[in-house]
């Protein structure tokens, strides 16, 4: 009698996980565990509470679980609405938005939200919806329409200014467009141009970083970020300080790391934003190259699994959406680690599932939910 009650409760508990992709689940569990362990160390001597992180993780899981139950068809139908609301909010931000630290990014609608976050999911949804609708009758000018759908929010976000988010939203859209079949002859020149630009910046860094030279289309502080990246020691106590200190944290971690809670750089406050954007430096210092390889393997597995789910998805919408969401995860991880290790300019990008932060975790849970949903509903649609 008792036994069956326990097994019933067990059954009930595990039924929560029914329909979730186990592989993706374990990977996410692994990442969340790393995130939680690191959080414990990184949040020492900060006002952030342990309970908040648990609540965020639970909320993220709840969002993921809920979305995984929703058939992709519903998302497809909601896509244009979500996108529309997102654009409306961005316009509202431009008009009524709150200004913090010189940027107009937030909107007070009872609680303070950052509409550009919505665009990170709304953009691939909208474009996947658009390409789904045009499937089979795709014309050249459809790419033009796609470009307009893409550029309206990107420009709005870039003007806030929030170049980091704008680039991420742009990347999310571009993933959909490229995966939808944009011809290589259009893509390759852009890649070439980009590569050429980077090479030019690296070679002529000293010249273009001269103080009296202003860059077109770019704020001075953004130019400064690129320039301090090229030579962090040019501003050792200013913008370059964070990059230098996080590189020291990573480098001093060595192969095995200094051990959990033993990172001097992190615990002596040399790492900025150590529980949010720069949490990777804390992890690296305490767990070393060994820990980093495990973390990178987890991210790589996440991307592989996400792409595999997308490849097995039943229609163009789910394929494009799944692959784009997966690549967004990848982009976050790459840009964040690149920035913390001094490869990329400092932009505000969290490390997926590791950084502390409610909004980001919910967005990521949403994305993971989409992948779960695509996996869960593949047979239903096919049959």
């Amino acid at each position, binding site marked *: 009698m008792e036994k069956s009650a326990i097994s019933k409760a067990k059954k009930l508990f595990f039924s929560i996980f029914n329909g979730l992709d186990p592989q993706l689940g374990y990977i996410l569990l692994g990442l969340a565990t790393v995130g939680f362990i690191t959080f414990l160390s990184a949040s020492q001597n900060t006002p952030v509470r342990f309970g908040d992180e648990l609540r965020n993780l639970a909320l993220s899981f709840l969002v993921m679980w809920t979305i995984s139950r929703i058939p992709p068809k519903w998302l497809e139908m909601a896509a244009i609405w979500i996108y529309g609301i997102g654009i409306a909010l961005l316009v509202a931000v431009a008009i009524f938005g709150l200004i913090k630290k010189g940027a107009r990014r937030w909107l007070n609608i009872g609680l303070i939200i950052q509409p550009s976050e919505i665009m990170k999911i709304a953009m691939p949804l909208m474009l996947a919806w658009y390409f789904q609708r045009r499937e089979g009758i795709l014309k050249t000018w459809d790419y033009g329409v796609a470009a307009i759908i893409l550029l309206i929010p990107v420009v709005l976000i870039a003007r806030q200014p929030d170049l980091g988010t704008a680039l991420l939203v742009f990347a999310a859209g571009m993933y959909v467009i490229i995966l939808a079949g944009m011809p290589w002859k259009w893509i390759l020149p852009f890649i070439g141009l980009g590569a050429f630009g980077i090479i030019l910046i690296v070679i002529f860094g000293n010249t273009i970083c001269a103080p009296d030279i202003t860059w077109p289309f770019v704020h001075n502080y953004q130019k400064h970020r690129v320039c301090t990246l090229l030579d962090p020691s040019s501003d050792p106590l200013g913008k370059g300080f964070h990059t230098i200190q996080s590189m020291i944290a990573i480098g001093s971690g060595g192969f095995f790391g200094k051990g959990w809670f033993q990172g001097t750089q992190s615990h*002596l406050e040399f790492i900025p934003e150590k529980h949010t954007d720069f949490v990777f430096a804390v992890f690296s210092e305490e767990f070393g190259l060994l820990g980093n390889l495990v973390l990178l393997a987890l991210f790589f597995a996440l991307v592989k699994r996400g792409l595999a789910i997308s490849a097995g998805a039943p229609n163009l919408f789910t*394929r494009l959406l799944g692959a784009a969401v997966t690549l967004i995860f990848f982009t976050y991880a*790459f840009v964040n680690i690149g920035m913390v290790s001094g490869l990329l300019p400092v932009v505000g990008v969290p490390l997926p599932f590791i950084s502390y932060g409610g909004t980001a975790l919910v967005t990521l849970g949403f994305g993971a939910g989409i992948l779960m949903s695509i996996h869960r509903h593949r047979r239903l649609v096919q049959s």
Partner: protein
Amino acid sequence: MVSFKKPNLDSFQERIHIATLFVTFCFLILVTRLVWLQLVNHGKYALLAENNRIAIVPAPANRGLIIDRNGIVIGRNYSALTLDVNAGEIKGNVDELIDEISQIVLISPRDRRNFKRSLEDSRKMGTFPLRSMLTEAETARFMANRYRFPGVEIRARSFREYPYNELASHLIGYIGRVSLKDKERMQSEIESAKADDPDALQTSFLPGIQYVGKIGLEQSYESVLRGSPGYDQVEITAGGKPVRTLSSSPSVPGKNIVLSVDIKLQYLVEQLYGNFRGAFVAIEPQTGDILAFVSKPNFNPNDFVEGIDSVTWKELNDSPQKPLYNRPLKGIYPPGSTYKPFMALAALETKKRTPSQSISDPGYFDFGNHTFRDDKKGGHGIVDMQKSIVESCDTYYYLLARDMGVNMMHDFMKPFGFGQITGIDLKGESRGILPSTEWKKNTFKKPEQQKWYEGETISLGIGQGYNAFTILQLAHGMANMANNGIVMKPHLVKAIEDPFTRNRTLTTPKESYRIDLNQENIEVIKKAMVEVNNSGTSASVFKGTSYQVGGKTGTAQVFSLNSKEYNHSSTAEFLRDHALYIAFAPADKPTIVIAMVVENAGFGAQYAAPIARKALDFYIEGKWPKEIPEWKRAP
């Protein structure tokens, strides 16, 4: 219009593969970067992290005390609360910061000036006191407002204090904040010390040294008094906040110096000088212990410790009294008649005279076409050696000088220390001038100036002419004679004392050398000098002593009067004669010798000898003159 082929699963799969490749490539970049940071450059970054984390906080060493021969402390330390400002953390205008702080804690214009000066001197490195000796109320007020002033802190600090203020200022000297120049000098000292002995630990931790002796004993015994500062290795946050101490190396306090000076005697003499300028040196002849070393007027060394304010500094520097001038060490004076006993001894030793050989003094001596006058019109009559000293007969010594010649005088006087560095333990001693033909040749440029003229020899006999000695040399010479030719190096510091065990290590009361003298000759001179105080020029001053005193008065001309009569009251003060006096007592076995000058005072017997009498009465009999305020021990 071109239409594209319908995107099918194959083309999507293909793009997924490309995406996978792209992702793999990007992850490889990250892995490479992490290997570069964590394996290849691990050492470099580990060191950087360690440097980040650890700050060295100096722990200043307590400076040694300065103690007189009887145990009275005349240079000491006290602890007080100080408002310290870390120069590195000053953001924006210094004046604005001080204005803001001054609303909470009283900051005088002098504090402000001193602080700004230390900032400039140090190129804005380190922590500097803005205000010292905070009251309890001020401390409480500041602590309540502390959050407003990052980098400003209240600390207990040790301060140097000279409890008797002006007393003995020229011999004690003072300490001041280490200047950049001092720092550079100390750095090179430490490096050369390391080069000499590579095994020796860093003798001093430079950043811990904030004060250094600037003049006087504080300067010459700096290395003894300073000790070596320690330091704590402290783990700090990026904001410089200390977290915990990792290791600490304790400071070693400086050693105390025990002076040979009797500070009560010093005090008495300084009081006796009143408003007169001058120099006074008393030496214990058997040891070379300097018992008093007076330079008047003096200054308050406490004014210098935390940086002197410009008004006081200007006053001290511009004063015609020259209070900063160390007269016994640097001032050179013609010895005048105090030179006569030495001349007389020279005459006996060189056999140019016997004690009984007499001259007839008409009151002047003609040499060439110049007349050298005696101070007694009509002369002293028949004068033998004793009378020449007792009555201070000039003519006797004009003749003696002529008979000896300049070089013989020079050779005799040199071992007594005249015109020589005595080697006292203070820096900046003047050599003075003990003339010789050689000296003149080396000193002047033009050939006609280099030649010695016979006429120049004559006035040397009465301690005038080129003769110019410090009062220290005169006292040293007197001590050498009183000690029967055994030369002891004069010194102000007798012993070095360990601050914990109180064990004393004697410094150097060693005999330097002996002057080969005939004891009988010395006795003749000593006897004559005793007679000076019995029946001679200073007899009235020394009436009624229970001990016998040998002495000799002197009056030194400040400028050449040519043939005009000297009139004390009508001569401008700074042109008046210097009054000199030398003495030894008790005459049979001297325990103290004195040499002194009272500048522009007039006759030695009238102005200098009375001071010597009172000093001797105190030193030998313990008698304190009524007119001088009692010695009070500092609280």
